[in-house]
């Protein structure tokens, strides 16, 4: 368990950071300039807090009260930077072995062969970094950090400098770190899809402060954080379970607290837990049970509140199914015509195609 509680005055703003990160992936989410990278640089020992304490379990990395400030090379934290930062004068193998050689044999928790297999880089070993693609380089950088057998892995937007189509090549490898190695990761990002796919917990950071911190589903469902999370992506994040595959229509039926969902067929075992996102702009409302129409997914629910937004639309908050909180973005005119008010029974309709496949990610391993 990483426990962070420190303060630091910087020229532009002050960092006041307090959060904890257990096993699995904790995402540090925030807009650019919010202080994400500075925060993990303080964890890594590259920057020094004015005061506070940083510790992993019983191992104290920094404690201003006791005058402890462990040097970066002694913190046993792996750091994957936004740019790969591979050593240009060494081969891929040389880069991988750089940190490995500095770890006493008894303290090694992962072997070179394991890392090479995990990241699929066996064909690259003799090459120089400049001969690699961006995605390959970042995979080598992840491997290099893993081979130091760190207690915790820091990742600073590892996909930010990679072309969007290539990002899909790396995401599965990061999922493998989470699911196969079980290593704790602090993952900096401002990309919603990435976080929903990868993270277990989110710490939301704004102007140098951790605004909230908790499981992804909870943080994403908080309306008051919309301005920080981003309007376009706003919506409910639900845990769903694979219930059935329909080979004829090539659909997969999911169950969730909100109700049943049909999505394009997914290659997952029955019972597998996934995470789905229902964006509020993809949900429309009806007072009666919708008749014949092409929309497959519909939930019965009750309006809890109506949040006025500037512009033509408002957010209608609905408790659907067994109490799952979802939002529908509808025009003020519709709110008036349908006489929507707290207590109104409604049907929420979600086009199955509107469930963004990229946002379907496996939920992390059981949290302790």
């Amino acid at each position, binding site marked *: 368990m990483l426990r962070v509680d420190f303060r630091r005055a910087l020229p532009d703003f002050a960092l006041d950071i307090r959060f904890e990160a257990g096993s699995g992936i904790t995402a540090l989410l925030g807009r650019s300039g919010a202080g994400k990278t500075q925060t993990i640089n303080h964890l890594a020992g590259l920057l020094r807090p004015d005061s506070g304490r940083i510790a992993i379990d019983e191992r104290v990395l920094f404690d201003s009260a006791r005058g402890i400030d462990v040097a970066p090379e002694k913190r046993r934290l792996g750091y994957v930077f936004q740019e790969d*930062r591979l050593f240009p004068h060494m081969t891929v193998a040389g880069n991988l072995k750089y940190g490995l050689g500095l770890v006493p044999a008894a303290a090694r928790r992962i072997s070179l062969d394991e890392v090479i297999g995990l990241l699929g880089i066996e064909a690259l070993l003799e090459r120089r970094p400049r001969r690699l693609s961006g995605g390959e380089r970042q995979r080598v950088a992840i491997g290099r950090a893993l081979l*130091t057998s760190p207690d915790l892995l820091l990742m600073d937007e590892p996909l930010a400098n990679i072309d969007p189509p290539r990002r899909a090549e790396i995401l599965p490898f990061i999922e493998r770190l989470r699911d196969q190695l079980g290593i704790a990761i602090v993952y900096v990002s401002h990309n919603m899809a990435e976080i929903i796919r990868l993270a277990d917990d989110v710490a939301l950071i704004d102007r140098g402060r951790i605004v909230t911190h908790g499981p992804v589903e909870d943080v994403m469902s908080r309306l008051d954080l919309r301005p920080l999370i981003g309007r376009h992506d706003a919506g409910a994040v639900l845990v769903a379970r694979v219930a059935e595959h329909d080979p004829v229509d090539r659909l997969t039926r999911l169950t969730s607290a909100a109700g049943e969902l049909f999505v394009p067929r997914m290659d997952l075992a029955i019972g597998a837990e996934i995470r789905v996102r229902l964006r509020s702009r993809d949900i429309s409302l009806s007072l009666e049970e919708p008749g014949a129409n092409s929309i497959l997914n519909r939930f019965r629910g009750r309006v809890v509140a109506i949040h006025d937004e500037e512009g033509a639309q408002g957010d209608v908050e609905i408790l659907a199914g067994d109490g799952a909180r979802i939002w529908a973005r509808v025009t003020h005119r519709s709110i008036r015509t349908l006489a929507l008010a707290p207590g109104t029974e409604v049907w929420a309709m979600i086009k199955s195609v509107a469930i963004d496949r990229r946002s379907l990610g496996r939920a992390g391993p059981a949290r302790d």
Partner: protein
Amino acid sequence: MTPLEIEALSLSLKVALWSVLGVLLPGTALAWLLARRNFPGKAVLDALVHLPLVVPPVVVGYLLLVLLGRRGPLGAALYDLFGVTLVFSWQGAAIAAGVMALPLYVRAVRLSFESVDERLETAARTLGAGRLRVFATVTLPLIVPGLLTGVVLAFARALGEFGATITFVSNIPGQTRTLPLAIYSALQSPDGEAAALRLTILSVILAFAAIAASELIARRYGRALES
């Protein structure tokens, strides 16, 4: 070649080699300080290092004489403690050549220190390497091209050094008469034109050989980085 030519040539090589060897450590340290550190008096140190580049070599030679001569503060101490006299000796000539070569070396190496991406050094720290190891395994290998350039410049400058040498250690055959001094001496004698010409050709060949050798090494190293 005549025995005198061989003597001047080997003396020149010896003086230049030793002066470059002497410059390596303090020159690299100075370059690192100027490139990476901020401290009070940095501008003064910078100016001091560059002094030999801007004042006439004779002035440098004279300052060395004042400082390291038998009655100079440093020279007297050297003589009293170790019985060493630098004046009129090839070691003195190497010191004069080294002081003249230092700024060129520092400039080249400082530039390459500045061109090293410090983020790579930070990455090495997070991988478990202490400062010294980072310097030896990341910084140093990355500045090798700059070091080579610095060595070649320093070597060439040392080979051609004249003013500071003749002022500090005089022009003694077999002791301090390097190629440039030998050319000068030849020109002073009534029929030394032919000898001077031969010595000049010798100097040119020597300079070309040095540059060719450094190019070869640099290219090899560059290829190793490319593959």
